[in-house]
């Protein structure tokens, strides 16, 4: 079959030269082409696709990838190569060329490793399962992220991009699970309750001390895991055997026995450390990862402050609530009530449960307090008394501990930052993969404009509004009595009389003799996504605003839940959504003034808007969920390549995601060229092109009616 014949050198050379722009970059591609020419067609295709995809991001990375990956040809698992390439591109997105090159250089190491271990567990594949796994274990709610090595800062567990230590894929997954469980055990069984810097500072060789300490803790935690998760412990033992971890030497065996006691704590490990320091180097096990005291210290310090404040404020709020409830009592109490927390532990090693008492009377703790108490307990092994002093009046300021409180408008005053923003991925069709955390999205308010736009619109379209109200009222599905039913609440006398007559007559008697009330509720939630790009300036903007006013008027009649957001943006760093009306907000003067205040902004970046609004829409409980876009043209943004195919493909991808969430997207556009790209984005029937801007207000309501009946 000609189709499957390997490509010849010239056939490989030519695309390579184009993708890598050899004319300008003078990169040497001959050697790559030669090596590739000897591979099978399938492999050739695989590598060529990836080189092209990476080249769409950066040519240098693609070249380095080609040189290194092709050299290790036929010995490696394609899935692992893919993961590595994607990791390099993500790194490029995040940290630039230099960091990405480092990742690419690692391919060599990696490919070498793959000669023997071709079935690594890729972080992307396993992180979802492992995160749920670790959340199910008790204790603090942890996060899971990707890093250069397995370690934890006591709030986030880090795993490498690929775990390829073991020969079989299943074993690599188990290894990942063991790593996660081991890191969890560090937080759960109090490895970080001591100040490691202080404790290890006394030793001449701090690194050696840290290693020995890690060894001791590993012994202790293994014993904890054996008690807590015996099934996993068996697996871990098996991993150790098959990865050829060294057997435990003599002093370490004794340490293991001492540290296996259920009441052993990190203090016991520290007590043994002087002895261990002079003992032979601690054995390492495949899942223990690294211990990074600096990361832990930094994270812990911030957390302790934050949680202390949070807890005290929560307790103060709880007191206030209780006092409000007791406001009827004749004499207000003078003394500050005493709050006490009792831990009761059912068995050694179990996490205690907490009972809060107020002047010895038990109270039910407010939401989140138990989680806070657990987290504090993990840090100290007890609840320090100063945590139980309710915050005073002046101490209510939690803002310094909050991440979200930043005003989005401040972002561009001073240096750029991403605090308080939500990050959304974007689909890169050339890469055939997402660019992670690519769009920096913020919600902003439209400043309301109180002018005569709304009365004018209502006046101008008063006839139309009346007509629309009538049509929409007819759509309200009202209760109606269903007669002649087989089941119902009441006897349908008419039916019964007829049936009796039939029976007398000798013909068959029907059993549909009852009637019942049929009640239905329209259950529709709709999100309007309004184009606020610069190109809408002028009459398009006017038409959009008028349509929205008409839409709101009619939707109020209908009783459907609706929200309106405007979108605009300039580059991926500044994607903005403007709140015009939220779902739970009533349609009032302010909303009208906001509609009136819609002004053209910057460019049309659509993917992030669809992603964010679908997630908002998804939180609403409704049987039918609609996402209606009002736009004037194809997706297009300034400078960073968000245009033509790239923009369309990203928007399409975002719409596919929305559909997966059970949302029906629909587009109303005035772009006469819409026919060319809208079917691809929205599907053949999910869009309407309106040829005259003036007709927009009329049409929108009409289209809505057709969509929801």
């Amino acid at each position: 079959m000609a189709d499957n014949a390997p490509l010849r050198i010239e056939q490989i050379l030519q695309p390579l030269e184009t993708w890598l722009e050899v004319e300008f970059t003078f990169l040497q591609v001959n050697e790559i082409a030669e090596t590739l020419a000897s591979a099978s067609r399938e492999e050739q295709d695989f590598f060529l696709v990836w080189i092209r995809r990476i080249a769409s991001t950066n040519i240098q990375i693609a070249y380095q990838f080609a040189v290194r990956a092709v050299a290790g040809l036929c010995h490696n698992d394609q899935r692992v190569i893919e993961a590595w390439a994607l990791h390099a591109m993500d790194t490029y997105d995040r940290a630039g060329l230099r960091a990405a090159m480092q990742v690419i250089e690692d391919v060599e190491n990696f490919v070498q490793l793959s000669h023997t271990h071709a079935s690594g567990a890729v972080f992307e594949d396993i992180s979802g399962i492992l995160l749920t796994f670790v959340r199910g274990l008790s204790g603090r709610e942890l996060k899971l992220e990707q890093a250069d090595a397995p370690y934890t800062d006591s709030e986030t567990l880090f795993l490498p991009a690929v775990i390829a230590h073991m020969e079989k894929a299943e074993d690599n997954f188990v290894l990942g699970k063991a790593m996660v469980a081991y890191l969890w055990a560090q937080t759960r069984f109090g490895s970080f309750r001591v100040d490691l810097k202080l404790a290890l500072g006394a030793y001449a060789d701090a690194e050696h001390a840290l290693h020995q300490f890690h060894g001791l803790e590993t012994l202790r935690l293994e014993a904890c895991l054996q008690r807590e998760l015996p099934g996993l412990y068996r697996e871990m033992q098996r991993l150790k055997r098959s990865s050829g971890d060294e057997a435990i030497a003599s002093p370490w065996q004794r340490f293991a026995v001492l540290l296996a006691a259920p009441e052993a704590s990190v203090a016991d490990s520290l007590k043994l450390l002087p002895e261990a320091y002079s003992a032979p180097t601690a054995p390492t096990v495949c899942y223990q990862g690294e211990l990074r005291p600096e990361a832990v210290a930094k994270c812990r310090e911030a957390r302790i402050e934050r949680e202390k404040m949070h807890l005290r404020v929560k307790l103060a709020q709880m007191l206030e609530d209780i006092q409000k409830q007791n406001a009827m009592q004749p004499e207000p109490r003078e003394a500050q009530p005493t709050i006490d927390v009792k831990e009761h532990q059912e068995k050694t090693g179990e996490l205690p449960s907490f009972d809060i008492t107020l002047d010895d009377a038990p109270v039910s703790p407010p939401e989140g307090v138990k989680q806070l108490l657990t987290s504090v307990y993990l840090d100290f092994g007890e609840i320090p008394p100063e945590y139980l002093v309710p915050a005073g009046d002046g101490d209510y300021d939690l803002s310094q501990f909050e991440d979200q409180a930043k005003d989005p408008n401040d972002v561009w005053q001073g240096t750029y930052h991403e605090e308080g923003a939500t990050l959304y991925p974007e689909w890169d069709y050339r890469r055939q993969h997402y660019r992670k955390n690519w769009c920096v999205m913020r919600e902003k308010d439209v400043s309301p404009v109180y002018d005569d736009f709304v009365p004018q619109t209502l006046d101008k379209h008063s006839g139309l509004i009346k007509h629309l109200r009538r049509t929409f009222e007819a759509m309200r599905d009202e209760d109606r009595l269903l007669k002649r039913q087989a089941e119902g609440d009441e006897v349908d006398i008419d039916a019964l009389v007829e049936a009796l007559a039939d029976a007398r007559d000798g013909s068959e008697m029907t059993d549909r003799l009852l009637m019942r009330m049929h009640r239905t509720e329209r259950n529709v939630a709709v999100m309007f996504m309004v184009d606020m790009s610069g190109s809408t300036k002028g009459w398009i903007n006017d038409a959009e605003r008028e349509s929205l006013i008409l839409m709101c008027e009619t939707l109020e009649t209908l009783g459907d839940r609706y929200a309106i957001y405007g979108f605009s943006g300039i580059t991926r760093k500044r994607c903005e959504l403007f709140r015009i009306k939220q779902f739970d907000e009533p349609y009032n003067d302010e909303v009208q003034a906001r509609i009136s205040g819609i002004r053209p902004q910057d460019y049309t970046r659509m993917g992030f808007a669809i992603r964010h609004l679908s997630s908002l829409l998804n939180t609403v409980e409704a049987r039918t969920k609609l996402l209606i876009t009002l736009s004037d043209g194809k997706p297009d943004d300034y400078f960073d390549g968000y245009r033509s195919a790239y923009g369309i493909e990203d928007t399409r991808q975002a719409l596919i995601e929305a559909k997966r969430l059970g949302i029906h997207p629909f587009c109303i556009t005035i772009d006469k060229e819409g026919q060319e790209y809208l079917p691809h984005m929205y599907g053949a029937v999910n869009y309407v092109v309106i040829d005259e801007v003036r007709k927009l207000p009329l049409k929108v309501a009409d289209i809505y009616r057709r969509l929801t009946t």
Partner: protein
Amino acid sequence: MQARALKSEEYFIETEPYYQATGSEITIFEAAYRNHLPVLLKGPTGCGKTRFMEYMAWRLKRPLITVSCHDDLTASDLVGRYLVKGGETTWVDGPLARAVRAGAICYLDEIVEARKDTMVVIHPLADDRRVLPMEKLGVLLEADANFCLAVSYNPGYQSVLKDLKQSTRQRFVALEFDYPNAALESKIVANESKVDSALAEKLVKFAHMTRNLKGSGLEEGASTRLLVHAGKLIASGIEPVAACRSAIAQAISDDAEMLIAVQELSSSLF
């Protein structure tokens, strides 16, 4: 053996159902019963609300009429309706009317599922009037002195549409149920499913793991009932991990990734 067919108002519970009190719910219920106060049981699914009702019915020696409410349950389904029999209409009492007449305990399970208009018919029964208006008959049915109304409600499924109206909820003495503490729960599991206490403890630990996941992908953690199911499977010789998969994991989620994760939790534990 032939299955017994009983009239609902003759359904007395004869043998003592197994019930472990977690607090003072038994004495409170008895006091409410003596004072003709209706009772509202709140709590997540499978924590023992229905079992508690069976136990109280046994203790008070009253028949128990249970109605599982659904979103199509109408007032006539509770009160009664005319049916056509042989060319004539005859009145047939609904379960609520039967209970009111016979002085039974009427237990409306998951009351919020019923339609809003349905709930209103229980209002006159649930305050000091204790009458059931039967509009279609044009009579007020006075409740027997032994009649008791109990409803259950799961506040966990918080949806605006499915919340009890204040006018309804403020008629009841409320008893809050939750999963019992670990020691008690393992005792219950051991007793109900006849597994040994070490295994029951592990099952309870597993349940706690799934309850930790509530909110991060799971709507509800494993209930005591599911633990009993798993325990029974294990007692009849099924491997613990397989029993947890069938009786617990598959019952709480359909999401493939969640199932794998829950599976990993149980295989780590056993």
